[in-house]
């Protein structure tokens, strides 16, 4: 376990690339893209976890290497756990995408219906500056 712990430039760029790509995909509407985005960010996170242990070294297996040469085992164990958890959630999200496709015929995340209603209402209220309209608008919106 060496002293120089700074994540090197190459790895920093990889991290930046993975997180950027993942974040970008996360902000899309296609659930499959979002899902891929989470997978990529997950990869980035797992890599980061591994890197948090320090620079490369020998596998932390007694007998194969001296303890000083070994990489830090704890982040590896945590990365392993994280990998499995990410995998579990990925499959779930995949099933969700599938279910969404079966039910809706697409796998997109559309805007929330109820929020859209309130946005409509907001626009209508902004147009009519009359106070009295308020309650009536609300009731009309609600009962339509």
């Amino acid at each position, binding site marked *: 376990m060496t002293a120089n712990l700074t994540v090197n430039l190459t*790895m920093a760029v990889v991290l930046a690339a993975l997180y950027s790509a993942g974040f970008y995909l996360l902000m899309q509407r296609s659930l499959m893209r979002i899902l891929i985005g989470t997978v990529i960010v997950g990869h980035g996170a797992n890599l980061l976890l591994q890197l948090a242990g320090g620079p490369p070294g020998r596998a932390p297996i007694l007998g194969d290497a001296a303890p000083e040469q070994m990489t830090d085992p704890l982040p590896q164990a945590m990365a392993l756990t994280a990998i499995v958890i990410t995998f579990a959630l990925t499959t779930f999200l995949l099933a969700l995408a599938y279910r969404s496709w079966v039910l809706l015929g697409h796998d997109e995340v559309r805007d929330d219906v109820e929020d859209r209603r309130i946005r409509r209402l907001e626009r209508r209220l902004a147009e009519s500056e009359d106070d009295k309209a308020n309650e009536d608008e609300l009731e009309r919106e609600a009962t339509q």
Partner: protein
Amino acid sequence: MSAFVLVHLLVALALPIVARRNTGMAFAIAALPPAAALTWVLARSGAVLSGDAIVEEVPWSPLLGLEFTFRLDALAVLMTLLVSGIGVLVLVYSIGYFHAGSGDARRSAPLLLTFAGTMFGLILADDLLTVYVFWELTTVCSFLLVGQAGISRESRRSALQALMITTMGGLVMLLGFVVLGEAAGTYRISEIVAEPPGGTPLAVAASLILVGALTKSAQVPFHNWLPTAMVAPTPISAYLHAASMVKAGVFLVARLGPVFVGVPEWWLPTVVFGLITMVFGGWRALHETDLKKLLAYGTVSQLGFLMVLVGQGTYAAALAGAAMLLAHGMFKATLFLVVGIVDHQTGTRDVRELSGLGRRMPALATIAALAVASMAGLPPMLGFLGKEAAFGAFLEEGGGTGLLIDFVLLLGSVFTVAYSARMLWGAFARKPGVAPTGGKQPGAVLLVPAAIPAFAGVVLGIGYPLTDELAGSYAAVYGAGVDPLHLELWHGFELPLLFSVVAVAAGLWVHAMRVPLTALRRRLPKPLDAQRGYERIMALLERTAVGVTGRTQVGSLPTYLAIILLTVVAVPGSVLVYHAHVPADMALHHNLLQIPLAILVIIAAIAVVRAKRRLTAVLLVGVIGYGIGGLFIVDGGPDVALAQFLVETLTMVAFVFVLRRLPARFTKGDAARSLRWPKLALSVAGGVVIALGAVLFSAARQQPPAVSADFIAQSEEGAGATNIVNAILVDFRAFDTVGEISVLAVAATGVASLVLASRFDRRRRSSRGAQATAPAERPGVVLSGNGNGRRQEEEQS
């Protein structure tokens, strides 16, 4: 005392059972606890009035200063007469008033009793927080009693308005209580009175507490909830909105007055708002045709009067205030009950429809006349005592201010006399051109409760020494001084008497001039329409709510994620960038192999973003995964690499399973073109922030990982493993592993529940298809706010 409060509440809790069978019986039972309370208080009043207050403490949460502290003193005795005394009467009256078995009756009996209990608690409270507890409970009772079944929109709105205004005041008052309590170090009123804190907190507390008092006691500009609350059944109006609850504000000012003696933030608003309210209420009452509304505005006016008196903070004003408090409770309760009888027997309470009722119901008219006399301040009624004393109190103070106040009070009194006359005239006089009103004679159960306070007004007026003792022992909190004012029927020919005479005379004149005055009022501008103000504020509230929510809660997941990311970039990200000094010894790589693998991963990552086909993207993700697996190997993590490879493959298989059914290409027009670059910029910023974080945090480590050294040292002996990662997984940190497999189990179960759902759908559909020739396709339906089973067109098309 707590026992009495509790009995009220417990009986009220049990009352619905009785009320379901016999509402009359329910009201009769409901009258018992207040009667008992009244009896108990009166039995002890002798000692109490001579200065021996009875104190009881029930601890609740001492840490927060929360306790129920009750203290029976002169003010409390006085208020008990109103709260419990009138309470008993109203409950008895209700037996006759409500239709037996009606929904209103079933609701009202327990609620009225609850109200009586909380009000009783309120007047006994010697603790700010205790006051607040009961204060808010009375508000809730009022809401439920005003709204009843909430059938009409008017009743719902009125109840809501009363609730909102008084709660608003109550909450501000609570804040004031906390300020006061924290400044004083105690919430016990008697202790604060004994040793009031000073300085800014006191002034702030005064202003805040007054908001509560002014709203609860319907002072201008918060007054309007009171007239609108008149949609409630009349016994409720009589009890809550005349005799007791609306007095709570006045009571509070009276109670806390000694704390704030000489604090301008305290007395100035009470006087100013009180005077305005008195005049304004009286003026409005002059023009009402609905007797109840008339009384309501009269109440507003009188509450203003009371506020002026109790807010003044002198012995004399307090004395007058106490007398008026009592007087108002008596006559206003009577008048409401009378109007209730009129309404109940004739079916109307409109002055334009009522005619000749005095002749038909002389007993009722007599009772009303007694009460009106008290209200108008005619001797020898209790009202006269109070009013004389009031005029005297401010004169005694001397100076321009006292005189000014007296003149405004006089104006108010003129209006009071005028609407008193209007009330009597409106209800009982024979009016030309109006058919005599019919209707059955009221029974004793209605008449007697109305009569008792009316006669009490006479008795307390004639028996003025008794009244003086009662009021005086309250006023003594301000110190009686050398030659204290006394309540007397005859002070001699002095200015107060003149004022009284002028008030009566002018008032009668004003009543005579009612027709031109009403015309005048129509022509006057309406600068102060509190009702419209309230409506505007509520509309503004709704508008703001919809506006803010409509603009922020956009319902778009990408936006939400963008906001989260933006927060990450903006908040910790900016701090990182600000503190960034990239370490000088930062290497390009630690192992040559990192570079090609990095290139592989980066290219694949860029390609994924640009991929148009789902499978392509998945395969590229696979490349990323394998590439990272390679990096793990290079890093010296064979276990992680192995898991990574395995998981990556399995993920890919799972993806491919699902992609069989999805279209090959991603949906076109996935993102609005204009948002593409901002999104890209944001994501790159996010990525850079995290990479920067990785560099900075890893560079900041100062100590070697002691924990891991432990693991390495103990692995063989302690965990029986040479593979330390595995030792961590199954031994050192086995609990993580247990958790992790739970997640796996959960995910698998979830996948099954989602994917196999379509199988169940099919099965259900086929079984349903076998039953009927219903359409096989079920549209997706929303169960949400507007979800009236309407199809979600957007979702389907």
